[in-house]
């Protein structure tokens, strides 16, 4: 993965995580704020309920007091005090009084709790009122369970006595706690109140009074109701009415007790979570949008940043490649003062150091080479000089002999001297030739044709009886394309390698000439199946004047390496003892050098006869 992609990934991940973290934080804060607001609203509604409860209670008390002070109540009290039990004269009184005072429930009971008249259940005259509070009747309004023909109901009731005569009456009046009561509560948007009449054990959906739509699945309220029934204290729960989270509702349950502390009702305050869920969804949508935009921006920014950051790095890499290719003069422009700038400066110092070291090494090697050259030259010259010295001394001594002997010695010595002098000239000529290696003249060269020309040249030699056991094979890659090179020098180098390969196979073998492509380079391999080389020999193979053969100056492979190097290529050797040797030449195409050349683009191959010269097979 490139640095740019890594950078983009890091940026995108950073943006994503940042947006996610912000979203989570905002959602959490929103949820907490919503819950606080919900709690506040619930508390306000409960306060409102209690206030409304108290206000209505006062109103009920006032109305019941009015009933207790009415003429009808007084008449009934007088009649009862006189011992009358004629319910027929009382039976409709409660209903009329209740209608006058707009009370939903009104009962007139005697001191024993026997109902004399009932507005809500006229037929119940003569029966005991089972819902009377124990002990002293409360002075204020209280929650009461009203027995009705169709069941039971909750009321906000008050009791007032009618103290006339010896048998006082009790007036019990109340207002129904029902849908109308709930509707009278001013609920904030999204809130609703329900009243559960705790008139049966467990949870019964019929006991629920709502001012709005009845919840779809009432059974969800059961655990909350049962919890309040058991614990007799406030409880809360989050209800999921449907799979849609927007339908969720926070439900708060408050127990409502009667005068004898019995749990008669439960006020349920619901607060929809729809606004929160919608807000949360909007936050998530915004986060997704911001995340997407952030990722796009991250891509763009990372691309820009990567290009900005990697450009010096790329320049460094390119410079490193140049250095690796031998261009040690490569310099990197230092355009910043940051780490990359320091790196570039370090690189430039490194290349400068390398240049200095190389020059020093070159100088050292040059001195060593001269020494080696001097040594070789002395060695080479010493060999013919010693016969020359002996011949001249022999000739001097021959002056003491007879003329005939002298002449004979002179003839022999002359021929010897000439031979050795010729030998000396040859030695000097070869050294002179090595010193006069020409610079390559680049022109398009078809490597396959070059290899074929070399093979053609070799085949003439391979017909000789000494070399007939060597087979030459060519494995040429098609569509290889031209390279820019000097055909004569390359021909000489290849020929040298091929001749060396033949020399390496005195017992015969297979000589393989192989071409191929590798990117913008052309590969030429010269392989033999000869005795092979040791690793040490491989290391020293291209050293001038080094030879593994009994004859030769050791300059052949050095010349080959020089030619290849002058073409910008490189040569390597693979060999193992007993398994043959393969020389691998990698030539850059260097076609850009042709633009500066006077040669036409068409390729040129040099035949063996047109070669400028032949490389020694030494």
């Amino acid at each position, binding site marked *: 993965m490139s640095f740019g992609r890594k950078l983009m990934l890091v940026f995108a991940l950073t943006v994503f995580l940042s947006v996610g973290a912000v979203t989570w934080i905002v959602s959490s804060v929103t949820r907490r704020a919503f819950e606080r607001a919900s709690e506040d609203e619930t508390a306000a509604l409960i306060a409102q309920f209690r206030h409304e409860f108290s206000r209505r209670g006062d109103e009920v008390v006032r109305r019941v007091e009015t009933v207790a002070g009415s003429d009808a109540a007084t008449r009934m009290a007088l009649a009862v005090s006189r011992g009358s039990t004629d*319910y027929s004269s009382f039976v409709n009184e409660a209903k009329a009084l209740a209608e006058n005072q707009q009370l939903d429930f009104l009962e007139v009971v005697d001191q024993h709790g026997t109902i004399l008249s009932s507005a809500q*259940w006229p037929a119940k005259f003569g*029966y005991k009122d089972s819902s009377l509070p124990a002990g002293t009747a409360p002075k204020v309004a209280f929650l009461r369970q009203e027995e009705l*023909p169709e069941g039971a109901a909750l009321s906000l009731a008050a009791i007032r006595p009618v103290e006339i005569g010896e048998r006082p009456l009790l007036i019990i009046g109340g207002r129904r706690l029902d849908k109308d009561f709930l509707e009278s509560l001013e609920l904030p948007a999204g809130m609703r109140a329900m009243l559960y009449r705790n008139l049966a054990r467990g949870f019964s959906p019929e006991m629920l009074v709502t001012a709005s739509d009845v919840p779809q699945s009432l059974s969800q309220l059961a655990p909350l109701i049962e919890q309040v029934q058991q614990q007799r204290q406030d409880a809360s729960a989050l209800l999921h009415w449907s799979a849609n989270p927007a339908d969720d509702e926070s439900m708060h349950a408050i127990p409502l007790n009667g005068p004898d502390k019995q749990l008669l009702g439960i006020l349920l305050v619901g607060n929809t979570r729809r606004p929160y869920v919608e807000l949360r969804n909007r936050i998530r949508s915004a986060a997704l949008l911001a995340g997407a935009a952030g990722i796009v921006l991250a891509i763009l920014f990372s691309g820009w940043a990567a290009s900005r950051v990697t450009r010096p790095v790329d320049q460094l890499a390119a410079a490193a490649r140049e250095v690796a290719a031998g261009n040690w003069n490569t310099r990197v422009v230092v355009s910043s003062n940051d780490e990359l700038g320091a790196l570039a400066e370090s690189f430039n110092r490194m290349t400068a150091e390398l240049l200095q070291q190389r020059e020093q090494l070159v100088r050292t090697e040059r001195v060593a080479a001269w020494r080696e050259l001097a040594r070789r030259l002395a060695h080479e010259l010493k060999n013919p000089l010693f016969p020359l010295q002996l011949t001249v001394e022999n000739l001097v001594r021959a002056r003491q002999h007879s003329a005939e002997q002298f002449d004979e010695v002179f003839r022999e010595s002359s021929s010897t001297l000439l031979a050795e002098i010729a030998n000396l000239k040859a030695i000097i000529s070869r050294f002179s030739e090595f010193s006069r290696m020409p610079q390559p003249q680049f022109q398009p060269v078809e490597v396959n044709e070059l290899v074929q020309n070399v093979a053609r040249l070799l085949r003439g030699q391979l017909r000789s009886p000494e070399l007939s056991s060597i087979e030459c094979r060519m494995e040429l890659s098609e569509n290889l394309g031209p390279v820019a090179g000097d055909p004569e020098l390359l021909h000489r180098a290849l020929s040298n390698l091929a001749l060396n390969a033949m020399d390496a196979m005195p017992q015969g073998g297979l000589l393989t000439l192989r071409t191929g492509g590798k990117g913008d380079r052309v590969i030429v391999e010269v392989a033999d199946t000869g005795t092979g080389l040791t690793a040490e020999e491989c290391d020293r193979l291209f050293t001038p004047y080094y030879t593994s053969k009994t004859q030769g100056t050791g300059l052949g492979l050095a010349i080959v390496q020089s030619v290849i190097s002058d073409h910008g290529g490189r040569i390597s050797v693979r060999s193992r003892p007993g398994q043959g040797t393969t020389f691998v030449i990698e030539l850059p195409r260097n076609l850009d050098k042709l633009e500066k050349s006077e040669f036409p683009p068409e390729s040129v191959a040099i035949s063996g006869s047109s070669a400028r010269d032949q490389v020694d097979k030494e």
Partner: protein
Amino acid sequence: MKRCALLLLAAASCLYGVVALASTRPHYGGTLRLAVREAPISLYPADPSQSDSPVMRSLYRLIFDTLVILDARGLPQPGLAVSWQADPGNQRWQFAIRHGVSFQDGIAVSPDAVAGSLRAANPNWKIFAAGEGIVIECDAPTANLPAILALPRYGIAKRTGGKLIGSGPFAVKQWDPGKKLSLAAREDYWAGRAFVDAIEIEMGKTFRDQILEFDLGKADVVEVAPDQARRLAAEGRGIRSSAAAEWMGLVFRDDLRPDLSRDEAPDGQSTVEKLRTALAFSIDRDSMNNVLLQGGGEPAGALLPNWMTGYAFLFPTAADMQRAQLTRGEVPQAPAWSLSYDVSDPLARVIAERVVLNARDAGLRLQAVSSATADVSLLRVPLASLDAEVALTNLAAKLGLPQPKFDGDPPAALYAAENALLQSQRIIPLLYLRPAVAVRANVRDWTEDQVGEWDLQTVWMETEKP
């Protein structure tokens, strides 16, 4: 001087007597305004969907004549038929049609018209005109056919131009179905013109609306709920109550529950019958009548009231909670029964609620519901006729009981038939209600028979003094 004074006093007394006689003597004219609860959408007397209340029967009689009318003792008297005769077996009857009677369009009432009207009212009978009369061949011996024909639904009606007309004392002047009916007295009525010129009937009025209109002077006669009659009378309104003419009681569904009916007790009563007996014993009819009904009725232990049969006192009406609880205790587990009642009837509601309370005292579970399909129904059925057999037959039909069989001579046959119905334990009689009306003081000679039907032909309007 003293003689002169006596003469003057005598003359003044005679003058006052003449004036007083003149003010109490019936005279023609005036419009009688009625307000009723009934809201019929048709005036056809044989329409089975219409109510059979005394009010409707009274209205039918204003427009349509019947062949026979019943007198105050329930005996058949000539109406459109001047005479009748039954063949042996009482299955074929001949009725002679009165001459000189015409429909409200002036066309004479012919035997063919009478036969056609009766055939429409009862398709089971074979009816045809024969000479000056008609012949009715019943599908079974019908000894009380004249009493049956006195029922208003056998009023002779004819359709002319899409209108329904009769030969009664009043002609329809305006008819707004369910809202208002205006009638005009017929000058040519065969039994004589009614005293009032017209009758206007406002329909579909609640008791409350009626009494308001009465108090505002917009109605001369209005219905009064039985439980309100005493209070309204105490407040000074002219309240007229008829005899106990409406039966109220509980009717059990015919289909017994198999799991209980199979559990036969040694005494022959099934558990269901025991529970019904316990319920019957638990009901305190006196409290219902005295308190809830404010004396507007009387406790009922039978189907027909005592004034009609003379033996109704034989059927007990008093509550016996101890026996109720004992009987209930003989059944280990009692099902919860549902009790339906007419939710639009406040009286039925309180009676039903009292029944529920009484049943609860006996250990029975009874739940008042408004559903039509309940285990027990609280029903109110007006007595249809002054004839006991016709009334019982009609009552049994309304309650869904088997038709009574009258074998033998009355009243033994009537008692046997009624007792058989009671012994079926399908019903528990509660009360007889007394229909009542509030009548303004200027409405004179207001009369009604014992089953609550009004005789509006004899009513006359006294001119109110300013």
